[in-house]
């Protein structure tokens, strides 16, 4: 059974995940949703991907282009801009730093809650 993800943690990290996925290859919204779910983050609602993409686009970190699709509605492809690439580097470093700092604390007790004072 896959663990349920905290929505606040996911919200914080979603931008970074999207930047990374778009950096790998240009993608459209539906494809990005599928790719996020394929990472094991199945409980990320489809809808939450789009506001995150909108924010990245507004801040100039990704650019988009509408491309006609032979089967279905036009697809909006997202591409990383140079500032997006810089942001990805910065956020990756920040995320790695947090994970490195937090992981030892969590693993001290075998990842189990201590249950308070005895």
């Amino acid at each position: 059974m896959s663990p349920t993800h905290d929505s606040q943690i996911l919200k914080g990290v979603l931008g970074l995940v999207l930047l990374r996925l778009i950096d790998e290859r240009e993608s459209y919204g539906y494809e990005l949703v599928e790719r996020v779910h394929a990472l094991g983050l199945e409980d990320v609602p489809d809808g939450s991907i789009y506001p995150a993409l909108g924010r990245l686009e507004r801040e100039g970190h990704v650019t988009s282009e509408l491309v006609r699709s032979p089967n279905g509605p036009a697809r909006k492809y997202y591409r990383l801009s140079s500032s997006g690439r810089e942001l990805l580097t910065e956020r990756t470093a920040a995320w790695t730093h947090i994970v490195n700092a937090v992981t030892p604390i969590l693993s001290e007790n075998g990842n189990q809650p201590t249950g308070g004072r005895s």
Partner: protein
Amino acid sequence: MTGSLEAAKARAQIETTLARLSWKLRRTTSPARRREIRRDLRAHLLTTADDGGSAEALRRLGDLGALAEDYAEAERGRPPEPRYRTGVIAAIVVWVLVVLADGRRLLDDHGLNVAQRGDFDPWSWTAGTPNGKLDLFRVFGDVEHGLLFEVEMYRLGYIVFPLLAFVLGSRLWRAWRPTVLRSRLSRS
């Protein structure tokens, strides 16, 4: 027949959901951006519905209230963009008004008491460029002959007034805000 009915029902469900989301965003998001959001989500929902049906697509979209909050949060700080469509509509309306006003006797009253008209009859006033070389329009009247007020539009007026309406209606000056320019340059 049943298939097309099902498809129509699914489409209606999707459109209703999009309309509800758009309504929730009406205070925080511009109409142009709301149209864009609806277009993005419609494309997504239709693609998802092809795989698992519209009910599943809408379930996967998540809670509409939370989605509206996400959008509102993501939109915060977005500089307002020009509203070109409104500008075009304003320009067309003004152009029609100019056509209607041109040569029309707006206040034509034959029963006017001409005895009180004073010494200014007939009168006229022309608006144009400061150097007097180009005229926009002229208003004039001749009370003695039962004409209180008439408008005559010159060729320049047909261009300037709709153009002005477009600029005002579209808030064209927003296009030159540094933040909008920057985001547009980064897109290109």
